[in-house]
């Protein structure tokens, strides 16, 4: 048994631990919890023609008398009005389908990069990251030029003789799918790559040695071992896509109402901050559920593994 460390060392150890744990908590408190509290507060207020455009949640009426008004009407309205519900459902649907598409496209790409020769890997990874060097907004705008009825895609298809009349893609749900998958694909590929590049290739050799054909080896070894990467990538795509605003606004049509767009309208056009905040809080609550479920699943997959 090693001798217990002297007290001073113990003390510094504790201090450094406190600092190490404290900093991220401070960060989360300042930049996540505090804004969240503000939004929560606004969601419980009433809209008002004032600056800021909502009523105060509490006020001192008299010496020693504090009046707190909690207004739940915003939440009730969001829950009762079909508009909000359908926007939420549509957002979830778009996010789900896009996550699936990103996974189907991104997994083979990540796998190819992870198994490529060393000298190719860095180049291929660069190609994945390269689009980030151009502004997100500009890249989405560029898709308008590609997808519009006299855009690059239609011109190409007509030139190839595949179609006679231009396809109406822009301002449809399809355009949203294209834009989202394009924009979020790297967020699927990178965690998958990180996971797959750590895969021990001798496991696949062992599977082959035990009589497993390559496809079965993939299903029984590679896929389960990359589940953590699949979950990480899926979360990185699904969660921001649910609240995505720019892509549906620029590429989507009137029928494809997503909750991000709705939030923007409530906030800036209708100046109904409390309602917008209530919507945001509900959206957050809705997203926490799958997040926690995935976290649980991930812990179970990696359970027992260091």
């Amino acid at each position, binding site marked *: 048994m090693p001798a217990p460390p002297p007290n001073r060392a113990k003390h510094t150890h504790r201090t450094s631990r406190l600092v190490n744990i404290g900093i991220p908590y401070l960060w989360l408190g300042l930049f996540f919890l505090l804004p969240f509290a503000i939004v929560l507060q606004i969601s419980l207020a009433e809209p008002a023609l004032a600056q800021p455009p909502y009523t105060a949640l509490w006020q001192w009426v008299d010496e020693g008398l504090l009046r707190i008004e909690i207004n739940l009407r915003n939440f009730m309205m969001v829950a009762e009005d079909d508009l909000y519900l359908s926007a939420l459902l549509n957002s979830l649907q778009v996010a789900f389908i896009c996550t699936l598409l990103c996974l189907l496209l991104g997994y083979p790409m990540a796998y190819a990069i992870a198994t490529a020769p060393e000298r190719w890997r860095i180049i291929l990874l660069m190609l994945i990251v390269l689009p980030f060097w151009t502004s997100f907004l500009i890249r989405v705008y560029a898709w308008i030029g590609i997808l519009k009825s006299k855009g690059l895609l239609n011109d190409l298809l007509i030139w190839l003789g595949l179609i006679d009349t231009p396809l109406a893609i822009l301002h449809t749900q399809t355009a949203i799918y294209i834009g989202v998958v394009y924009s979020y694909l790297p967020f699927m590929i990178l965690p998958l790559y990180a996971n797959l590049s750590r895969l*021990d290739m*001798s496991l696949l050799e*062992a599977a*082959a*040695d*035990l*009589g*497993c054909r390559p496809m079965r080896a993939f299903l029984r070894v590679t896929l389960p*071992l990359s589940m953590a990467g699949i979950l990480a990538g899926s979360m990185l795509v699904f969660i921001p896509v649910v609240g995505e605003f720019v892509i549906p606004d620029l590429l989507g049509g009137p029928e494809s109402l997503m909750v991000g767009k709705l939030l923007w309208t409530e906030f800036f056009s209708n100046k109904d901050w409390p309602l917008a905040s209530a919507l945001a809080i509900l959206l957050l609550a809705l997203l926490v559920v799958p997040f926690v479920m995935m976290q649980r699943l991930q812990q179970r997959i990696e359970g*027992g593994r260091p």
Partner: protein
Amino acid sequence: MTTLAERRSLEPWQDPKAVPYLRIERVTKKFDDIYAVDDVSLDIFQGEFFSLLGSSGCGKSTLLRMLAGLEYPSSGRIYIDGVDVTDVPAYSRPVNMMFQSYALFPHMSVEQNVEFGLKQDRLSRRERTERVAEMLELLKITELRKRRPDQLSGGQRQRVALARSLAKHPKLLLLDEPLGALDKRLRENTQFELVNLQERLGITFVTVTHDQEEAMTMSTRIAVMDAGQIMQVDTPTAIYEFPTCRLVAEFIGSINLFEGKVVATEGNAVLVETRVGRPMRMHSFHPMVLGTPVTVAVRPEKMRLCADFRDDGVNQLKGRVEDIAYLGDVSIYRIRVGDGALVEMTLTNVQPRTEQALTWEQDVAIEWSPSSGVVLTE
């Protein structure tokens, strides 16, 4: 002597009519421009415990991987039980391999790992359960069956890997450094266990190792490899006592080498003139031409103290003790003889150390018999 000869004549590799179970025919493997395995031919027989021995990078692992089907030869053929399997992929070969890293599936329990290969064979559930139980029993790991690989010690993992590779009842088992990751004590115990297991199951084992002691203890035969080629294939005894080249002689154990040339031949003996002492008289299995440059190789334990040094004595050398390494059971003495040459001699410590005769800076005379060494031409 006759009994030994009789016994030896029964060994399959000495019987010209014996059919090898595994035949490696002029196999070469090139990686880019480097020959990892260079024109190797080998016959390995049913029930053998065959070791490929060599330092790292000698091509032994590549050869093993070609037997498993994880690499394909650049040229040459591989036959298992008479069937040409050269182009058969790993998943269709009737062999199993135990990987050096064990390559246990981290997301499966011990039980599931062992069962993996059986599932590929589409055995019924009942058969699989029975076979898994049998394997776990065989390797005494039944109580670990629900654990995951990361909850096991190195020795336990080794057993699981062995159980997994044996589960399909292969006729030929390939083992890549099977004991490499174990500590010394565990390794020694496991050596004997492996041999017992192999004898009990009657499976042909081909193992790769860089540890000569391991190869000596376990093998029926050893192939010593260097730079992609096989230097010598023989029983452990023959490899140790009668190496055919300097490389093998030096790789296995320690050995005293005296370079010189043949100055006379008398019957089955040759006289070799070297830089130290008078010409050495050694038995030789092959006739030698006068003037051939040769190396006399004598193991340290074949050296003994010389009680009556004579000027015309055979294979006698005078020198001075320079180093003593006390290993408990034996002591190694380094004796400076003639112009700068050091000779190593191993003596068993029959008496307690304090009563030993030899000490540093002591003048001694040593000798060895003409039959206790070999004359090497390469």
